[in-house]
């Protein structure tokens, strides 16, 4: 069931931890909950260009995990305060 990643990935140059919530943090939190670093890795692993987003605010709506299961996200903020500094923001 689990897909092994075979494509070469662009590795990030640095990582920082946020202290405050913003949309970028929310985006990273949603990808990392599903087991991906960020959108770039998700697109590489899933071999797709499409990511389901909520039309009104652009938050991630649906992600497919590495084992093929689906994670569905709310239309509003999901990242709780205590998870903010556990989220990782990667820079390339």
């Amino acid at each position: 069931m689990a897909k092994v990643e075979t494509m070469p990935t662009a590795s990030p140059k640095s990582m920082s931890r946020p202290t405050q919530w913003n949309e970028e943090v929310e985006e990273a939190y949603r990808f990392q909950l599903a087991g991906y670093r960020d959108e770039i890795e998700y697109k590489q692993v899933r071999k797709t260009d499409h990511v389901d987003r909520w039309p009104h605010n652009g938050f991630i709506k649906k992600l497919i995990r590495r084992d093929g299961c689906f994670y569905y996200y709310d239309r509003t903020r999901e990242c709780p305060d205590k998870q903010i500094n556990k989220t990782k923001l990667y820079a390339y």
Partner: protein
Amino acid sequence: MMKTRQQQPCLKKVKQPGKVVDLRERVPFTQEVEIFDRNNLKKPEPPVAGAFKERTTGGTSFKKFYERGDFPIALEHDTKGNKIAWKVEIEKLDYHHYLPLFFDGLCETSHPYEFFARQGVHDMLEHGGSKILPVIPQLIIPIKNALNTRNHKVLCTTLKVLQHLVVSADMVGEALVPYYRQILPVMNIFINKNLNSGDGIDYSQQKRENVGDLIHETLEAFERCGGEDAFINIKYMVPTYESCMLN
């Protein structure tokens, strides 16, 4: 008379004109009071009606289906336990089958059934769109059963689900109006269940576990989404409710 005199040593038996009544027998409460009155005994307390008492439900079909592995969800027991991993896309699910089943699980109080039912309902409502409206009639009995348990946790969960349900899609609020007679009686019972803690801190407010407040929020959500007939129908079932839109 002779018979009555012979039975006097037995304290449980008291006399009434014409016959001897054994108090261990079930007699109507009003008659019981009368008997005690005639015999100069202390009058009994009226029996407890048990309106607020918790009621148990038999095993739910949600539990049965879950244990049989019938739900398209991956069972995980990891530390970040606030999400359900769906094995199929929610958009492709048969809402007529699964949504009533998940609602049925709202009666559950034990882990993991309670979590999967609550989160499953949440995900299906959030992503259901127009598929929710046709299923409304099938949701009423599970909602009614959950409210009828009168269990604090179940009440809180169900009220939050109802608030989510009315805003989940267009016309859902209006579609619920004919079913107020089924849903609102329990809300009428608990609408005043509010802690009077003086100047102390009521932590249930922050955790959104105050049943009285949740009922008010739910009724207001019903009124806002229920169209023009909503208020009068709510008022009929919950007479102390005051409109949040007319005033």
